[in-house]
């Protein structure tokens, strides 16, 4: 088996003087779609920020694509989309993409490709500030796709999207993974778990389990993944 795309060991993170990640260890396989699931505030975003290398960590190690997280060489190999769309609202869709395309040094053709991947054709000349929340987050996603990164870290990319668009995006994610991209996608919606190859379930800054959807169903005897998650929590608390 090839080396994992992400390898986290004993990761501890403190925010505001409080420990929010308590010695987390996990691996994410290359070319897979891994879902990072758990209730709001459980530390998903902090874990993602740590993997991307923008979070100050208190202890532990993170290796991403064979390099230490946050190292210079990774900046063109890892794409990161924050929960709040981080694009310029006073620029048009096209201007945003042009700017970030120049920063990651890719050509015009990648702009058109990214726009079509996130189904924003026809909106190129619109100011981002005039778009709906869902459209804005898709601009943010398109920006991360420009450089065709080997690893995509997506923090709640489907929040506020209608079911059709959500399904389309998951098809896109599956396609990217087939082409060899590794995706780490967070969500607090359990029904998105079935779209993933592997699941990381988090709670209160710790990893509850790391399993495939099938394993999770088998382990808990629940067909619905949401119920399976609850069953796991109950078992954990019963201990």
């Amino acid at each position, binding site marked *: 088996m090839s080396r994992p795309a992400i390898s986290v060991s004993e990761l501890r993170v403190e925010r505001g003087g409080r420990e929010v990640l308590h010695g987390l260890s996990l691996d994410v396989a290359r070319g897979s779609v891994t879902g990072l699931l758990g209730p709001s505030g459980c530390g998903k975003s902090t874990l993602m920020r740590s993997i991307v290398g923008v*979070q100050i960590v208190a202890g532990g190690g993170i290796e991403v694509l064979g390099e230490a997280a946050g190292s210079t060489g990774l*900046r063109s190999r890892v794409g990161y989309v924050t929960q709040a769309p981080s694009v*310029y609202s*006073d*620029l048009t869709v096209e*201007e945003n993409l042009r700017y970030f395309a*120049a*920063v990651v040094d890719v050509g015009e053709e990648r702009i058109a490709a990214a726009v079509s991947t996130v189904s924003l054709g026809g909106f190129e000349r619109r100011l981002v500030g005039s778009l709906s929340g869902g459209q804005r987050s898709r601009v943010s996603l398109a920006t991360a796709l420009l450089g065709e990164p080997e690893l995509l870290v997506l923090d709640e990319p489907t929040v506020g999207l209608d079911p059709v668009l959500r399904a389309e995006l998951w098809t896109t994610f599956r396609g990217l993974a087939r082409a060899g991209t590794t995706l780490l996608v967070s969500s607090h919606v359990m029904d998105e778990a079935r779209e993933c190859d592997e699941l990381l379930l988090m709670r209160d800054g710790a990893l509850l389990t790391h399993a495939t959807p099938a394993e999770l169903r088998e382990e808990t005897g629940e067909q619905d993944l949401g119920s399976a998650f609850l069953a796991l929590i109950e078992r954990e608390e019963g201990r």
Partner: protein
Amino acid sequence: MSARSTGATALRVLWQIRHDPRTIALMLVVPTVLLALLYWVFEGKPQVFQQIGAPLCGLFPFIVMFLITSIAMLRERTSGTLERLMSLPIAKADILFGYGIAFGALAAIQTAIVCFVGFVALGLEATHGAWLVALLAIANAVLGMALGLFVSAFAQTEFQAVQFMPAFVLPQLILCGLFVARDEMAGFLQAISWLLPLTYAFDALARATGQEPLDSAFAADVLVVVGATIASLGLGALTLRRRTG
């Protein structure tokens, strides 16, 4: 650092401003209107207007660029775009110089208008050439930008950021010698004024528009302004963090 990323950043900042025509209009018109106001206030006292108005032509860009940069940079910090940039292959210097080029260019246009009105229409004298005032104005604009970028790190909200203008700029304007000659101020005020970069910016402008020939004191002023700009850019770079808590 790369010319591509620096240029792209400068263009991006200019695109943002272009989508905001009211800001452009305010930026270009307000200094000229203020200068005209001074002209009328000091009607009959052309000497006072010369003493205050002429250097002021080169100080407006400092004030305006300080304010605009501190807000623009605060937005980058709060909207997450700075965090995104910091996760991408762009150097901090690309961001700093990109902003510097964009706001330097805007300052050049602003200065051209205010200098034209001041030195041609309102009869101000630029003994050593209006172009020298314009050059100093652009240098001051970049200094204002660098300071604005630095202080933006200490503001959490736009309300705080706008108040950095009266907090950081007005004291410098009061103490720089524009209203009262510095050697007429109390000793401790003089001592403080030596530490403020705007003092040197004003002194250079006063000499450039004064009757005395330009000497080494002028050169020293210019050096201090350039040095303060480099130091502020360095401090600004420190506030662009790849990793945050």
